[in-house]
């Protein structure tokens, strides 16, 4: 099967327009980041506490905010996640104003998280606990085993494991009937219902990053990114020409900046996994760039005397089939992640969707033009020296 006969589109005819467009987006992004919306740093790079909770019954952001308001934490960011209406992310933004020592600060953040959980729980379970019942949605496997083992020696561990596994899959036990079909003995099943109650919420995750760790993680992520870009620059400069190395770095910087800009405009949070996503985009982009550079290098040998711009156009056209197929399959992969990957992976997939489109664009309209400019500035001198 053939996508099309090798086309002859003069891509680089539009290089100034394309560069201008890229420059405009980057500029708008930088201005937006510097003066307006800024970058929304996740707990990894800022500081504070991020809670993910799951409720027994669906609720909405407004209701949760109201509950938090009662303890003076109404400014916390509440975000619904998933489609069940039962999962929420809560970022406590109330900063610890008195700026005590770092040690106290992280403890203050922790206390904030405790306060949020307490506010959401309200008086849920107080009566049950007074009657000596335990929360099936809060108990750990060891304690549940002990509880069952005291009544049914020998079958405690197995039953506890089955119940906890069911709870882990569902996130929360909303109804005792969910325990049917786990193969529990009837007496165990009714014992559970007698001795436990179903608390209204469970904490899925809880992350607290102190100020020192936040700045440390930030510094290291920037450092790692810069060094890895430098590594690529040196390798490409050695394998091709300095111009190619410089162009690759410009391309990648543009990829990173545009991605950051879009993150700023859409107010998505930047955290460590997102950095991995940005690096993945950079990886795809560099791959594209090298494929084109490689083809240009090869064609330059075959077409001596032809202007570099023409050689580049021919090379981009020759690689067009490959570009479309490869980017298309990657796009397909990422689209699957975006649609079916679930909440945790969604931000990452969104990033990759932008990245795959952006990567191809930047390869054609950033890397090739920069090489052209570089050659026209420094190329003639080199030629004379030879």
């Amino acid at each position, binding site marked *: 099967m053939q996508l099309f006969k090798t086309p002859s589109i003069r891509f680089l005819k539009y290089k100034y327009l394309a560069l201008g467009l890229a420059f405009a987006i980057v500029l708008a992004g930088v201005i937006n980041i510097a003066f307006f919306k800024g970058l929304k740093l996740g707990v990894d790079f800022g500081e504070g506490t991020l809670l993910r909770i799951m409720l027994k019954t669906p609720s909405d952001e407004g209701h949760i905010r109201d509950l938090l308001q009662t303890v003076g934490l109404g400014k916390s960011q509440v975000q619904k996640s998933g489609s069940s209406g039962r999962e929420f992310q809560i970022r406590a933004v109330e900063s610890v104003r008195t700026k005590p020592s770092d*040690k106290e600060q992280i403890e203050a953040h922790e206390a904030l998280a405790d306060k949020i959980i307490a506010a959401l729980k309200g008086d849920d379970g107080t009566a049950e606990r007074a009657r000596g019942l335990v929360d099936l949605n809060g108990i750990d496997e060891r304690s549940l085993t002990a509880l069952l083992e005291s009544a049914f020696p020998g079958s405690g561990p197995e039953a506890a494991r089955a119940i906890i596994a069911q709870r882990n899959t569902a996130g929360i036990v909303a109804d005792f009937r969910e325990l049917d079909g786990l193969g529990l003995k009837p007496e165990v099943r009714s014992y559970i219902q007698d001795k436990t109650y179903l608390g209204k919420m469970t904490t899925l995750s809880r992350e607290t990053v102190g100020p020192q760790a936040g700045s440390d993680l930030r510094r290291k992520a920037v450092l790692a*990114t810069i060094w*890895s870009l430098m590594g690529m620059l040196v390798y490409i400069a050695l394998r091709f020409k300095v111009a190619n190395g410089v162009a690759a770095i410009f391309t990648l910087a543009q990829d990173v900046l545009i991605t950051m800009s879009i993150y700023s405009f859409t107010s998505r949070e930047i955290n*460590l996994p997102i950095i*991995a996503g940005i690096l*993945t985009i950079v990886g795809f982009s560099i791959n594209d760039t090298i494929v084109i550079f490689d083809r240009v290098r090869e064609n330059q040998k075959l077409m001596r005397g032809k202007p570099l711009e023409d050689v580049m156009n021919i090379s981009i056209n020759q690689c067009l089939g*490959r570009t479309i197929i490869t980017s298309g*399959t990657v796009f397909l992969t990422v689209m699957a992640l975006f649609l079916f990957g679930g909440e945790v992976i969604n931000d990452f997939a969104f990033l990759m969707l932008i990245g795959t489109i952006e990567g191809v664009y930047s390869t054609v309209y950033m890397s090739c033009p920069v090489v052209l400019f570089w050659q026209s500035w420094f190329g003639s001198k080199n030629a004379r020296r030879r």
Partner: protein
Amino acid sequence: MKKNLQWKVVLAVAVIGLSIFLAYPFNDTKIHRGLDLKGGIHLSLQVITDDAINIETDQEISRLEELFKKNSLTYQKFAKEGLGRISIQGTLADQEGKTRDLFDQYSRDWDYSFTGDRANLSLKPLAAQALRDMSVVQAKETIDNRVNGLGVSEPLIQRQGNDKIIVELPGVDNPERIKDLIKVTAILEWKLVKAGPAPDEATLLQATNGQVPDDAEVLRGDPKRGQGGFYLVNKVAVVTGKDLRTIRRVTDEWNNPAVSFSLNSDGGARFEQVTGANIGKQIAIILDNKVQSAPLVEARISRAQGGVIQGRFSPQEADDLVVILRAGALPAGIKYLEERTIGPALGADSIRQGLLAGLVAIVAVMAFMIVFYKLSGANAVIALILNVLILFGALAYFKAALTLPGIAGIILSIGMAVDANVLIFERIKEELAVGKGVASAITQGFSRAFSAIFDSNLTTIISAVFLFQFGTGPIRGYAVTLVISLLANLFTAVFISHLLFDLMVRKSAKKLSI
């Protein structure tokens, strides 16, 4: 079959066999899931190494004071002048030689100088560094012991940088308990109670006119124990954790969990004497400056008897206290930098959805390759499957954990693997289009595409190596998976795929299904 083809087949089968052997069965014991996928707890903490210097300084002061007295040297006062600095005021000029000899002999880790009637000592930088270092090593060991006492499987306790310790405990479903367990410095003290418990400090200090006496201090009950009140206790401890000989969990007379202890002879003697003299008074059991319980002394407690710590413990808490006391106190304070708890439910959910999405994506890509490149596409699909197999084998071998960013790395490498095959196939098509024979088109296609594949994979590997070197947790996980799968990529996309073509066109070299 040509001879070198035979060897290639052997090599391919060996690598794939080894990978399957390493990774099979594909479950938790072989492929470790990272905390983000499995759930668990991640703590990053800093050892406050200044504490170690301060402790050393205090000890040096008391050592020197003793030596000064023993050698009948006169002085007015020893003073701590900050971190690792001591001054001795009021030393006489005519005893300088003798003092020097003393310092030379007993204070080798300290630099000293004399100004007027003062002697100044400061801890040598190298000695200070060694002390700081030791305190981190000891803290790591203590944490290790405490965690191991709990029986968590696969705990990871790692030193990072100068003074940081990373604790990762996968699959732990009760993280609060672990945090408490590690956080405790575990300085255990028994002190006589002068007054209390009282609901607030004013009530507590009524008898002493609102003043805290010089020889006493105010402590709070541990809120976790339901001991909310304030206590006025003696500054000097009767016995401390250092005097403990044995410690174990028991149940008290009301059948509640408790911790029993016995003391060494020195501490036992002191305990016997103090309890004998204070019958009817309270003695507070204090852990890290929080009162756990304050039982009444009903009778003199002989050194053989030991005692019981009661504090409304749950069975778990009693166990934990035993673990903490057995593992010893931390040599310095600990500061938490980062705490992450990922519940197992979140992990289970994200891995299920992630796997589903990954599967859909891979099947779609494979279907596309076969539809578009026919039999050659099937080659690419085989190469892709083998790529993933080798990756899993390597992950199992290196005991590297699969994380969410790691999956990002896999996506990138799968993308690049597909790209490598597409590059090769498009080149082969170009060669066929200009009328080359099948065999030579294949050879040319591979060799022409090779430089692009090699350069792009190697560039990415180089960048990943830097990321590993300079990055933190998730970024490192990304880098590891990426490097492994790109190396696998070079092997499968170039070597295995070529081999499959060679095997495929051996006989009918007239037409290629591409």
